[in-house]
C-alpha cells in the first residue's frame, strides 16, 4: 500500500555486554510518513535511531535506510539522512548562522549553495532576525528549531529526530511540530522519538517500545481501537470515598487511578454518566465520558508487556 518503504528493519538486535538494548525489532516506514517511536527512557528508542543513522552497528538483524544496508555502508546512509541527537548538539558559543555554516561545511556543501540554503532555512524556522545571536543565548525552543535546520541543510530524504522537544515549553513544541509536518508535506520521511504522548497524536503511525521490544505498531486511532476497546469515563470522587462499588460491576474492564481521579474503561453501551452517578452515590464529584488518549494506550501496552494484563 502507498509509496515505497524508505526504512526497513528486520529482527534488529543490539547488545551492550550482557544487556540487550534492542531485541528482535522489525518494522518499516513509508516515504513521507511521520513515524513516532514511543517509549519510556531506556526502552531502546535512541539505540534504534543510532543504528539507523549508521552510528552504531547492529548485533543482529538487518536495517535498510534509503535502500542502503546500514551495517554494510553506514557512510552512504549519512548522506541521505539528517539527524538531531537527543543531547542538544549545536555549538553554544557560535552564532546561529555560524552553526549552520559549520554543519553545511561538514556535509560538504559549497559556499554559495550553503549561504542560500542557510538563509532559506533560517527564515523557515523563524530565526532570520536572530541569526547573528550566540546560540547559547537563544531560548530552548529556538535552539531546537535551529538544530532541525542544521539537520536539513543537505536536503535529506529522511529526518531522524531523537526527543527533539524534550525540555521545551508547550508553545515551542507546537511550532516545532508545525515544522515537522511541513517537512513531511514536502515528502521528507520523519522518524521521531518522544515520550510525550500528546505529541504522538501528530504521528501517522506509532511504534511502542518497552524493554527493548516493539510491543505495538499502528496509527494512533488503530492503537486505541485494538488496545482500548469499549468506552472511557473520567471520574472524580470526593476524598476518602472508595471506588470499590464499581470494581465488581459486570462490564467494567479496567480502573486506573490517578490521585483522586480515575479512568474507567467499560464495555461499549453498558454504562452512561447517569448510571455511574447512581452507582457511586454521593461520592461522585464529576463523571464524564472521554476519548481514550495514547497515555491510556501506553499504560495498557506496558501493563500487558509485564504480563499483568487484566482479562
Amino acid at each position, binding site marked *: 500500500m502507498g509509496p515505497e518503504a524508505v526504512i526497513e528493519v528486520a529482527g534488529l538486535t543490539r547488545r*551492550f555486554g550482557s544487556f540487550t538494548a534492542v531485541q528482535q525489532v522489525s518494522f518499516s516506514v513509508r516515504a513521507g510518513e511521520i513515524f513516532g517511536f514511543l517509549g519510556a527512557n531506556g526502552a531502546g528508542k535512541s539505540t534504534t535511531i*543510532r543504528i539507523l*543513522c*549508521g*552510528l*552504531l*552497528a547492529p548485533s543482529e538483524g538487518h536495517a535498510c535506510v534509503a535502500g542502503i544496508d546500514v551495517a554494510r555502508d*553506514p*557512510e552512504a546512509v*549519512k*548522506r541521505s*539522512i539528517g*539527524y*538531531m*541527537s*537527543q*543531547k*542538544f*548538539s*549545536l*555549538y553554544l*558559543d*557560535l552564532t546561529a548562522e*555560524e552553526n549552520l*555554516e*559549520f*554543519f*553545511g*561545511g*561538514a*556535509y*560538504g*556543501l*559549497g*559556499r554559495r549553495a550553503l549561504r542560500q540554503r542557510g538563509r532559506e532555512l533560517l527564515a523557515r524556522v523563524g530565526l532570520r532576525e536572530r541569526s547573528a545571536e550566540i546560540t547559547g543565548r537563544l531560548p530552548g525552543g529556538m535552539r531546537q528549531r535551529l538544530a532541525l535546520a542544521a539537520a536539513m541543510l543537505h536536503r535529506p530524504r529522511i529526518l531522524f529526530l531523537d526527543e527533539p522537544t524534550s525540555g521545551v515549553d508547550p508553545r515551542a513544541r507546537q511550532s516545532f511540530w508545525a515544522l515537522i509536518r511541513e517537512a513531511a508535506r514536502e515528502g521528507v520521511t520523519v522518524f521521531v522519538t518522544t515520550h510525550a504522548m500528546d505529541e504522538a497524536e501528530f504521528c501517522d503511525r506509532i511504534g511502542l517500545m518497552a524493554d527493548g521490544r516493539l510491543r505495538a505498531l499502528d496509527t494512533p486511532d488503530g492503537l486505541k481501537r485494538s488496545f482500548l476497546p469499549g468506552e472511557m469515563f473520567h471520574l472524580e470522587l470526593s476524598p476518602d470515598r472508595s471506588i470499590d462499588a464499581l470494581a465488581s460491576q459486570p462490564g467494567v474492564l479496567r480502573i486506573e487511578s490517578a490521585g483522586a481521579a480515575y479512568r474507567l474503561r467499560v464495555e461499549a453501551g453498558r454504562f452512561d454518566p447517569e448510571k455511574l452517578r447512581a452507582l457511586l452515590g454521593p461520592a461522585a464529584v464529576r463523571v464524564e465520558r472521554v476519548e481514550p488518549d495514547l497515555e491510556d494506550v501506553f499504560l495498557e501496552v506496558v501493563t500487558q508487556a509485564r504480563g499483568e494484563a487484566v482479562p
Partner: protein
Amino acid sequence: MSPAGRSLRRTLALSGKELRHIVRDPRTLYLALGMPVVMLFIFGYAVTFDLDRLPLGVLDADRSPESRELVRAFESSGVFQRAWDLSNAAEEAEGHFHRGRIQGALVISPGFGRELGAGREGQVQFLLDGTDGVTAAIALGYAGAIAKAYQLRLLSRLSLELAPPLDARVRLRYNPEARSTIFIVPGLIALILALMMVLLTSLSVAREWERGSLEQLFATPAKRLQILIGKLLPYVALGMLQVLLVLALGTLLFQVPVRGSLLWLLGTALVFISGCVGQGLLISVLTRNQQLATQVAAITALLPTVLLSGFIFPIENMPWPLQALSTIVPARYFISALRGIMLKGNGPAEIWPQLAALLTFALVMLAAANARFQRRLD
C-alpha cells in the same frame, strides 16, 4: 564539487569552527599566549641558577695581610657578599645559619698568615648551608675556584721560578658566562608546548564527547580523518605561535642566541607539537571527559617534561630506571635538539637522531588516537 574539494571544504569548516571557539573564549587565548610570557619572566629573572651575592659570614681570627687578602678575594668575586662579621666561631655562625642571615661562613684560624709565610699549610674552614643542595654545590664550586686562584697568586709571589705543575684552563663553550636563561629557554619552549598542546587538544575533543556534538558530527558524511585534521590544525598553529613568541622574547630580553637555522628549529617544533597534539587526542578519546582528561594530561605531559626531560635535572645523574623511562619522554629529544640548534648552531646532520625519535613519537600517538577515534559509538 569534486571529492577533493569537498574534503578540503570539510576540513576547513572544522578548522574555522575550532578557531571561532578559541577566539570566542578568550581565556584559552590568554592562557596560550600569556603563560609563555609569565613563565619566561619567572624562569628568566627569578629562577636562575647563577649565584649572586650569597650572604657570607666572615670570621678572621688572624687579621694578617694574608687573611685579609683571602677575604677580599671572596668579596670581589661577586658571588659572595660579606654579610656578617663573626666574633667567635661555631655557635654564632650556627645562629645566623638558623635565621637565614648567612648561607656560608668563612673561618680563618689564628696563625694562618704565619703558617703560610713559613711555607706550611694554612688552615681555612668554609661552612655552607646545605638545605638548598643546588645552591650549596654551586657555591662550593666557586669557593674552591677562589681558593685555588688565591693559592696560585701566593705561589707565584713566594717563588717566581716555581710554576704550578698543572694549569687547567676551563672555558665554557657555547655559553661562556654560564647564563642559565640560555640553558632554560629551550626547555621552557618544550614545557609550554607539552603542557598547553596536550591540555588544549584533550579538552577540546573531550568537550565535544561530553556535549554530544561529536555524535552529531559523526552523523554527517565527514570522514574521521577530516574531523581530526580539521579540529587539530588550529592548535598546531597556536603552538607555533607560542614558539615564535618565546623565541622573540628570549632573544630580546635575555639575548638568547639562535645560532642554527630557524627553519630547522621551527620544523623540529612542528614535529614535537604534532606528537603533543596526538597525545592530547589520545587522552580525550580514552577518557571522553574533560575533568579526567585534564588530570591525565597533567600527569602524562607536565610531570615527565619537568622531571625527566633534562630541562632542570640532568638525565645523566638519574638512576638507571628513570633514565630508561626518560627515553619515552619526547621533551627529552626536543630540548636536546633545541639546545643544539640554538646554542651550538647544529643542523640536520647533528639533530637527526632526536628528530627521528620525535617523529616516531608523533606517528605512534596520532596513529593510536586515530585508531581509537571510532566513527561508531559504543
